[in-house]
Every structure is written in C-alpha cells, then in structure tokens.
C-alpha cells in the first residue's frame, strides 16, 4: 500500500495537472455531456424538486379537512381511502399484467428464435401494436370486444355463450390493453436478450446429455434471468402508469381507479397542484420500491457474460 502511494506521488510530480485530470477521465470530451446534463437539470431535476416542494404547500382546504400542517397532503393521501386504495388498484392491474407479459414472451421468443420462412413478418406483426398507442387500442377494444362487438357476436353465434361477456369498461378491459401494448415490448426485449446467449452453450449442454427441459432450466434460464428481471421492470413501468385506457376501457370510478387517474383529476379537475404533485410523487416512490425489490432479487442472479455475440 505504502509503496503504491509513494509511486503515485512520484508519478504525479512529472505529469501536468491536465494530464492528471485526463487520467481520471476529466478532459474536454466531457463538454459533450454538458447539454444533456443541463437538459436533465432544467427539465427533470428542477421541476421534480419543485413538485416535491409543492407537496408541502397544501391548499387551505386540505389543511382544514385533514390537519397536519404542511404535511396535510400526505395525511390526506394516507387517510383518504378514496385516494389510498388507488395504490392497490394500480398494483392489482400492473403486477399481473407485467408478469403475464414477461412469462408469455419467453416461450414465444424461444420458438421464434430459429430461422423459418416469414419470421421477419411474424415478428414485425408482434411488434406492431407498439405503434398503436393506448388510446387507439382502447377505442378498438371498445368496438371489438364490446357487447355488440365481433368477439361477443362470434361467441354467441357459435353457441359457446348465451349472453354477451362483459369484457370492457372493467378490470378485464384494462388488462387487455396492458397486454396488447406491453407484450410486444416484452417480446422485443426478451428476444434480444435471448439472441445474446451463445447457441453453442445449448449445443454443449446437448452433447452432455441434457434434454430440452434440463437445458432450459439449467443453462438458458439462469443466463436469461437478469434480462427477464429488466424486462419485467420496464413492462411494469409501462403498466404502472396506465392512464388513458383506465379511463376509456376501464371502470374509472371503481376497479380501475388507478393512481395516475387520481393524480390527473387533482391536477386538471380540482386544480389542486399540490395534491396532484403529492399523488404523483407517491406514485414514483411506490414504483421505485417495486423496482428496488426486483433489482435486489436480480443481484443474486448470474450477471456476467452470456457468451453471445457481444
């Protein structure tokens, strides 16, 4: 240790300050980072801290009703079951949808990994809904899966059901939109993770006598798991902030009264910016908690190279 520090000092004496800074990575190249940092500070950090500050400036009405002084918004958030329950409502929608998207994407990505005719077409079709957007998906779903829609009409005429199924304007409707818009995304990510795993590992396991189930469980899945965790996080983020579809195909006063909707109501309908910010910030906090749990779990998984093309 002591020899190392002695050398360090010896080295420093013959190198200029600019040299030493460059050694640590501080040089003119860093200037190129400046616009992005400035941008993040002005458009993200500043408004966000401003918003957090806003949560401690409750409207007089909130203070009168809930007390708690500058913490009135938080008292209201945890005290008002109409607001507080939206946490569970959001979770009940987002967690299953994100899990479903990830779990279903794995076998499909696996199946479509091998080359076959029309593969490009098929994967393009799978990815297509990314461009539809939630609003359009909601509109289509209302027509297609509504009481008069083709889906119910087909099921009734083929004699499978006698009364139309209630598929929209409820929990199910929102789940459908979350799957339709989230699955392509999950599939896209997982298939790129999968392509990063060297196929010769699978071949090696094969020569060692493992059947496909063993190969999947012992080789592919452990290598894929960190990617799955990342994919889950990203699809969860998408599902967690569901807003237009909860309003349009859901039951916005009941089972799909999600946090984003509550925040927007405070913002645009009640013009209570401080309460809106409070709900928004709490939304961020809760989402980050879920992400932290997943990341913690992921840290126990193998993280090194997957021997793939990169």
């Amino acid at each position, binding site marked *: 240790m002591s020899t190392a520090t002695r050398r360090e000092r010896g080295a420093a004496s013959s190198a200029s300050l600019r040299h030493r800074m460059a050694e640590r990575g501080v040089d003119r190249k860093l200037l*190129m980072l400046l616009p992005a940092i400035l941008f993040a500070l002005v458009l993200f950090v500043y408004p966000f801290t401003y918003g957090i500050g806003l949560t401690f400036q409750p409207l007089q009405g909130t203070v009168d009703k809930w007390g708690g002084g500058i913490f009135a918004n938080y008292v209201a958030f945890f005290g008002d079951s109409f607001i507080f329950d939206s946490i569970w409502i959001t979770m009940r929608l987002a967690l299953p949808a994100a899990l479903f998207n990830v779990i279903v994407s794995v076998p499909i990505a696996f199946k479509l990994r091998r080359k076959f005719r029309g593969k490009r077409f098929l994967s393009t079709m799978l990815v297509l809904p990314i461009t539809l957007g939630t609003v359009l*998906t909601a509109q289509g779903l209302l027509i297609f899966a509504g009481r008069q829609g083709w889906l119910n009409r087909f099921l009734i005429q083929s004699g499978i059901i006698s009364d139309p199924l209630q598929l929209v304007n409820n929990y199910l409707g929102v789940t459908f939109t979350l799957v339709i818009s989230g699955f392509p995304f999950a599939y896209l990510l997982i298939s790129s993770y999968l392509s990063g795993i060297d196929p010769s590992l699978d071949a090696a396991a094969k020569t060692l006598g493992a059947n496909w189930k063993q190969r999947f469980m012992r080789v592919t899945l452990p290598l894929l798991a960190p990617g799955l965790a990342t994919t889950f996080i990203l699809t969860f*983020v998408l599902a967690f902030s569901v807003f237009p579809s909860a309003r349009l195909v859901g039951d916005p006063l009941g089972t799909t009264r999600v946090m984003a909707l509550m925040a927007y109501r405070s913002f645009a309908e009640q013009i209570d910016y401080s309460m809106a910010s409070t709900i928004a910030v709490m939304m961020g906090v809760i989402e980050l908690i879920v992400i932290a749990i997943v990341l913690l779990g992921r840290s126990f998984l193998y993280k090194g190279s997957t021997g793939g093309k990169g």
Partner: protein
Amino acid sequence: MSKSQIVDEAAPFVRGAEKVLAEPKRSGHASRPPGEKSLAASPGTWFVWAGIGAFFIFLFGIISSVLVDSFGKPWFRTWLPENFTLSWYQSAWDKFDMTHIIGVTLIVGFSVVVISVLIGVPASYVLARSNFPLKRLVMVLFLLPILIPPITFGIPLATVMYNFGLGRTLIAVILVNLVPSVPFVIITMTPFIEQINPSIENAARMCGANMRQVFVRVLAPLLVPGILAAGILVLVRTVGMFELTFLVSGPSSDTLVVAIYRAMTSAGGSEARQLVSAMGVVYTVMMLVILVIALRFINPTQLVAQVKESRDE
C-alpha cells in the same frame, strides 16, 4: 472471422449430427431423437402458437373494427354496417381541423427526434468511451426519466410550464416530450457506441485525423444506423405519447392521440364513435407510413443483434 459467423457455421454441423443420430430410428413414430425434435409436437408448442393466434385475433379485431366502424353508417346489431360512407372523415376534418392536428403531431415528433439526437448522441459518446468521477450518478440521472412514470414528473413539469406561461403552447409540448426522449437516445446509443471498436478511432488519429475529422469522417458514418434506429423509436414514442402531451397541450397544440382522447371524453357527451374511429384510422395510417419508411432502414427485432454483427467487421 466473427464469433457469430463461427456460431452460424457450427449450427448446421450440430443439426447435421442430430440428423445422423436420428437416421436409424426413422422407422418408428414414437422413437424421436432426444431434444429439439420432440419439442415440435409438445404442448408447449401448441401453447405458443395458440397464444400468438389469440394475440393476432385481438390485434386484427381491434384494427379492423376501428377501420370498418370509421366507414360505417349505422352499425349496431349486425356483423357489418348497413351502409358505407366517407362522411366521418369529412366531419373529422370539419370539426377538428385534422390538417392542423397532423401538422402539429409531425412538427412535435420531428423536433423531438432532432433535438434529442443532437443532445443525446454526444452524451452517449462520452458515457461509452470515458470513465469520470460521478459517472454512475449521471447514468442514474438519465435513467430516472425512463423509469419514473410519466405522470410523476409530468405533473410537476406541467405546473412549472404553466407558471412560466408556456402552458398549452407547442414549445411546452416539445419540451415535455424531450424529457423521456433524450434519456432514451442516450440509453440506446451508449451500448451502440461501446460496440464500435475504439481502435478504429485510434487508427484514424494515427492516420493524422484530428478529433473533428475523427467524428465527421469515421464516427458519424458508423453511427448512422444507430441514430436512425433510435430516432425512429423516439418518433414512434413521441407520436404515441399521450400522458405528457396531454398535461400541457391545449386546443392549438394537441397532437393526434390527445385529440382522439378529447373526442372520446369531451364533456357533454362524447363525439360519435365513428368520428373517433375515423380519427383513429388517420392515426394508424400515419404510424404505418412512418413504420414503412422506418423498416426500409431497420429491422426492429434485430436492432441489438445487427449492431453487434456490424461491429465484427
């Protein structure tokens, strides 16, 4: 020879070996070789194809429902509408000034793409190539806007915009859409640049090129595929971005998605469903045009893989 090439060349060999192993067992139906082949008929396969099938039924149903609806006169209790008409498109243009809305959408989309590429790509170059103090903090700073729900930072951001008198303006719409787009460009371009061999830059310098020449003559051409891919994804995201735009846009700065949402939820009874469908079709057509142009340049599912292959050269 690149690694992937080696793998690709090895694959037929392995498959060939499998075939040889399978040969003597051909006669019996039950005696499949272990591994791949038995998977072909497994319930897992049926599950996969059924899942893909169901997905496509919904996808096709949704798109064609909207399409048929937008051309239908009355359509209630029948498989198809009784008459077809173009009048919903006519009234969409009359009532909402669609030309203006499409114009706003494209202006917002392309401005966001150009600005986020200009800000994001130099930043990702630095992140990909050098280590500096607080690098992790900077990375987190760029990750947060992608991870945090748009509403969470959108509401405070919108409040700030209104405070500065920017509410309902085109500038505000562009600015809020930049918040997730710049980090998105950075996050996608950083690994892309990492995959470009740094000794290529060193080689250029050894040939006597200064930093500017290295950027213009060597890096820029190599970055074009990545920038195109990232730009197209940003464009698609921005055109489809509802939450952030909705918070700050007003009648004259609504993008198409927001206009559709407003038409669906406008106070005092929403617009006729078919009118909304007509707008939806316009939106889809616009997206398809963007996509068709985009697919001439990139294949979205192979975004990552292609980058890696090109580096091996």
